[in-house]
């Protein structure tokens, strides 16, 4: 392409990054929320009670079992989620009988009051789950098309990461030479620092993202090498599971699950047993499985204890056998999802995810910064492509976070009993994003940046206040009660608002500095239409137009 290998790679890096930069930014941002999706869901269901510490797990299990016996007697698959560090409510879910022709039934979720054991009626919302699912299941597109678009973008991301390493001459020494300058060197350095600082994460998240859809993306090779039946067998080898429970079709009364819990506690006294599965409930073959909190990076083959639900005897399951390639793949999945992470590691995940988003954003801004002087010299104004990139940058980098905030606003402001409430929460997010993408077309670019940054500061800072106005679970209550899961969300939003305000302030200062610098070069102030047009006026003046 170019004269040297490095220059060619630089060219490639620039263009693969630009082409899908905005979708990648979307994927990184929505994907990063996934590390806190349970906490987000809890905030989006404000009817849920605050944390109560006084009820023992055994009592909670009894209440959950009682509820399921009454409300899910037709279902064969039950789940009980005990309060844990991420979700402090008692939650049950079950799978309904599949509809005629369907293979799996719908999953139903209920939050139970820890005292009464009754359903807490929560508003309809898709919660944090929908938000993080957007990063691979693009909301309005069909599953298959989203997977291919996401795969294409991820492949270009992998290319950008690897070419980025290649073109970076002094990857380690540059790490320590952040030049806090404005303009091109500053942006380049920010891009470099953000990339290098979390390089292993960027590579891991991108490559593992591709592995999730291994057989979809490499469909040709898969079909040539194995038949459909062989593929199914192969998948069983890669993702080994315990044997499925077969219904005996004879009714039987189950042991209290709490008694099995006591037995499990004797074997694993120190582990958090937050998740209980029941298969073939109230059937002669009923099986109860207790899972240890997933604390291992690789999927641990002995993370469960099984009991016969009728006799209460322990069932010894054969250890799950992973192939080497299978453990590598599952290890990558585990790293990608971060399910094993404790609170601190989870925050590190959030931080590296945001660094990834910031890396993409700085790369996109860098593209325009580099071309700006040349574009401003053009007689007929900047090129269409340049203006488009600038507009998409503002609409996405500053606009998307605001749109995501609107998702939370919709959750609070849409009527609780509204039809299609779940759909409209997402519609409002995308309508907001569309508006913020269009808006910069009608404003000078510098103003558009500043205004959207200020808007971001406003909507995020206002979120806790909105919570005060619309619910009884606001900071005054949650902090007082010590419920950090609720309070954490409000505080994080407040913090993001402050960050937006800070960036807006810095942006304004840098604009003013630019003006005063130009001013020193003796350009009459009257010629300046506004802060942003300064450079245009200047360059036109200097080129004699």
């Amino acid at each position, binding site marked *: *392409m170019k004269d040297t*290998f490095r220059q*060619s*790679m630089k*060219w*490639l890096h620039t263009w693969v990054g630009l082409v899908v930069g905005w979708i990648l930014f979307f994927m990184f941002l929505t994907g990063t929320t996934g590390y806190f999706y349970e906490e987000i869901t809890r905030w989006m269901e404000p009817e849920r009670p605050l944390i109560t510490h006084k009820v023992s797990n055994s009592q909670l299990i009894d209440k959950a079992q009682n509820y399921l016996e009454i409300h899910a007697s037709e279902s064969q698959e039950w789940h009980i989620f005990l309060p844990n560090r991420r979700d402090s409510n008692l939650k049950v879910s079950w799978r309904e009988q599949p509809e005629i022709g369907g293979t799996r039934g719908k999953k139903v979720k209920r939050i139970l009051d820890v005292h009464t054991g009754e359903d807490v009626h929560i508003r309809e919302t898709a919660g944090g789950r929908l938000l993080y699912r957007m990063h691979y299941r693009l909301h309005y597109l069909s599953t298959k098309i989203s997977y291919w678009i996401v795969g294409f973008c991820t*492949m270009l991301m*992998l*290319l950008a990461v*690897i*070419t980025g390493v*290649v073109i970076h001459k002094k990857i380690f020494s540059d790490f320590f030479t952040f030049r806090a300058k404005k303009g091109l060197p500053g942006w380049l350095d920010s891009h470099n620092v953000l990339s290098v600082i979390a390089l292993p994460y960027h590579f891991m998240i991108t*490559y593992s993202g*591709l*592995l999730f859809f*291994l*057989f979809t*993306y*490499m469909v*040709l*090779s*898969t079909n*040539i*090498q*194995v038949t459909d039946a*062989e593929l199914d*067998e*192969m998948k069983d*080898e*890669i993702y080994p599971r315990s044997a499925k429970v077969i219904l005996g079709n004879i009714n039987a009364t189950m042991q209290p699950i709490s008694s099995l819990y006591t037995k499990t506690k004797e074997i694993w006294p120190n582990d958090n047993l937050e998740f209980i599965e029941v298969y073939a409930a109230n059937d002669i073959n009923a099986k109860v499985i207790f899972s240890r909190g997933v604390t291992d990076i690789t999927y641990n083959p002995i993370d469960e204890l099984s009991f016969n639900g009728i006799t209460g005897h322990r069932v010894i399951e054969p250890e799950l056998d992973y*192939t*080497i*390639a*299978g453990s*590598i*793949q599952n290890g990558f999945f585990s790293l990608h999802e971060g399910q094993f992470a404790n609170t601190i590691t989870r925050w590190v995940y959030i931080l590296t995810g945001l660094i990834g988003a910031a890396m993409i954003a700085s790369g996109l801004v860098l593209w325009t910064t580099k071309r700006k002087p040349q574009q401003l010299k053009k007689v007929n104004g900047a090129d269409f492509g340049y203006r488009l990139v600038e507009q998409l940058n503002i609409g996405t980098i500053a606009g998307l976070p605001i749109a995501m905030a609107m998702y939370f606003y919709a959750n609070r402001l849409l009527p609780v009993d509204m039809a299609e409430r779940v759909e409209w929460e997402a519609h409002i997010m995308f309508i907001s994003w569309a508006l913020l993408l269009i808006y910069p077309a009608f404003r000078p670019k510098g103003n558009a940046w500043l205004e959207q940054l200020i808007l971001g500061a406003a909507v995020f800072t206002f979120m806790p206040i909105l919570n005060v106005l619309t619910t009884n679970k606001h900071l005054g209550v949650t902090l007082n009660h010590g419920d950090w899961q609720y309070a954490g969300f409000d505080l994080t939003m407040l913090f993001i608002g402050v960050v937006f305000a800070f960036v807006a302030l810095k942006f304004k200062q840098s604009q003013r500095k630019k003006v005063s610098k130009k001013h020193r070069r003796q350009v009459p102030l009257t010629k300046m239409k506004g802060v942003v047009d300064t450079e245009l006026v200047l360059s036109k003046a200097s080129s004699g137009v």
Partner: protein
Amino acid sequence: MEHKSLSVFTKFHFINPRFWVFSRVVAAMFGGYALATSSSLLIGQLLGESVGKYQAVHISLMLSFLLYTCAVMWVFSVKSAKKAWLGLIVANVLCLALTWALMQLVEMSR
């Protein structure tokens, strides 16, 4: 640079560089994917005897993304788009031929 070597077509000298970039993009996307596929067939065949078929196929698929990346980088690093196309074709044919030869060998040893 490629448009210099093609200066015969002076009429199109304005369009030419863009066409060749486009040609490279197509080569990288589809030729690269073909190479990722054919090389994964070869790896699958090479490893099949030692780690079993399923794991060999699995490893070959996992590596294919990295090979794809290398192929794309190579396409954009060579002097001309023609060379890139030629290289991709040769590499693809080579992978397929070797895979076929290996299959025959395995067949014979059975």
